[in-house]
């Protein structure tokens, strides 16, 4: 394997906390919740009536005709990619398009486009189904639209591993660069699944919080009274490139992506391994590939979604992998504020992890009123300063299907 170092040079996001990275980060440090009661009529008959919608509708940012040709998940991806691209300072003359790729994930794909076209088919017949339905709903549409936006002509991939997808996008981009297949890759993930069907289906799995009367208090990772996750929507995109390429063009470098671990539980299609063994192996693989010791890890942006089992298992993973360092690492779950973006989660949380290293401050976990006695972690409940010097952090993501992805980032 090539030892090419990979660095983060640009970031973009649209999230329940803000329409871009600076506003989202500011809201995270202020401990704000993006969860609201759904006003839509269809929500009235659902057991769960809360979700975390994006703070800024993409129609406010994208040109109308462009927007109507994109599924909502692709709209988010394009908005985030526009910001990340501008932030990176790259232009079509500073990167060879044939050396630029995309690895942009989706958990569920264009589900709202699929369902609205099915409604049209039933109500008005096949002639009225949109000719754009397939290129809008296919899971690789957001990645392809981002490639069209920036002119990327190397591999354009769409990792799909449920709630681990966004983190897998980051890991896959690192691989592309280290394998010499690209110099620059736009990585991340997107999701737009706040619709009656996914909400009803997740509800039937007993996966969602039913705290309808207190939306902002509903996402409460590791709290003793947590009762499920809150569905969120949005996208995150990072521009990563070989250090050589970044330095040659004088780019600003936020952090290094040191390495990743990807494993599978092979335990159950939906339930996490109660002992978190697959996740632990992912963390250990990430440390090994990154040539980092447990003592280098000062911060973890946890997957912790606010489900009873998953949050417990992740606590066990941290202890089984970091040993004594588990008592010193500052852990947070930004999902307490953003809700759970499924395929977008690993992406926006990678950005939060990079910003934590870059700004030397870990964002808080809100709603942790009474920490579950089964979770022995140092969880930040207000912004926590991180030490000076060379530091590293992990971003964990776990998904249905037993997918586990840990990505290690380091300060520069």
């Amino acid at each position, binding site marked *: 394997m090539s030892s090419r170092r990979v660095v983060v040079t640009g970031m973009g996001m649209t999230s329940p906390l803000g329409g871009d990275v600076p506003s989202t980060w500011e809201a995270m440090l202020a401990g704000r919740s993006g969860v609201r009661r759904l006003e839509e009529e269809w929500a009235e008959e659902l057991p769960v009536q809360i979700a975390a919608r994006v703070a800024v509708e993409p129609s406010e940012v994208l040109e109308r005709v462009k927007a109507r040709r994109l599924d909502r998940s692709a709209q988010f991806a394009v908005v985030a990619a526009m910001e990340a691209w501008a932030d990176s300072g790259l232009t079509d003359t500073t990167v060879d398009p044939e050396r630029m790729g995309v690895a942009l994930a989706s958990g569920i794909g264009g589900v709202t486009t699929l369902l609205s076209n099915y409604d049209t088919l039933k109500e008005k017949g096949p002639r009225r189904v949109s*000719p754009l339905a397939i290129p809008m709903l296919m899971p690789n549409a957001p990645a392809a639209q981002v490639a069209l936006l920036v002119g990327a002509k190397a591999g354009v991939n769409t990792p799909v591993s449920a709630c681990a997808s966004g983190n897998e996008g980051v890991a896959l981009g690192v691989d592309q660069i280290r394998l010499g297949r690209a110099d620059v890759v736009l990585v991340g993930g997107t999701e737009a699944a706040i619709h009656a069907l996914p909400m009803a289906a997740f509800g039937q799995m007993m996966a969602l919080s039913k705290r309808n009367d207190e939306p902002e208090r509903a996402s409460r990772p590791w709290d003793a009274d947590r009762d499920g996750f809150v569905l969120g929507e949005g996208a995150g995109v990072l521009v990563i490139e070989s250090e050589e390429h970044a330095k040659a063009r004088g780019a600003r470098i936020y952090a290094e992506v040191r390495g990743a671990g990807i494993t599978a539980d092979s335990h159950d299609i939906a339930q996490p391994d109660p002992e978190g063994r697959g996740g632990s192996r992912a963390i250990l693989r990430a440390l090994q590939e990154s040539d980092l010791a447990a003592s280098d890890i000062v911060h973890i942006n946890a997957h912790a979604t606010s489900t009873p089992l998953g949050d417990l298992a992740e606590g066990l993973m941290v202890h089984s992998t970091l040993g004594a360092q588990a008592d010193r690492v500052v852990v947070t779950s930004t999902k307490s504020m953003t809700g759970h973006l499924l395929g977008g989660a690993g992406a926006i949380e990678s950005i939060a992890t990079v910003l934590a290293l870059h700004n030397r401050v870990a964002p808080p976990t809100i709603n942790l009123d009474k920490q579950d006695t089964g979770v022995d972690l140092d969880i930040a409940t207000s912004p926590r300063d991180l030490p000076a010097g060379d530091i590293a952090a992990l971003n964990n993501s776990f998904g249905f299907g037993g997918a586990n992805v840990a990505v290690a980032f380091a300060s520069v």
Partner: protein
Amino acid sequence: MATTEEIRADLAEIVNEVAGIPADDVQLDKSFTDDLDVDSLSMVEVVVAAEEKFGVKIPDDEVKNLKTVGDAVAFIEQAPQA
């Protein structure tokens, strides 16, 4: 029966909605693909919206003959109401 200009104006609104082309640019002599940048998928959208608007059937085989806005207006004018 609508006049040629009324049909053109209604069709121009559809093209504007689907493809974002200013309605005033959608004149009889304009080619959908060469002048107005309407791609093949957008053309299907225009055709289906026109069928609904004007109450006519535009068979798939006919669409390839509708090269200009004038071709489409002429077809709509002579087509029987569906």
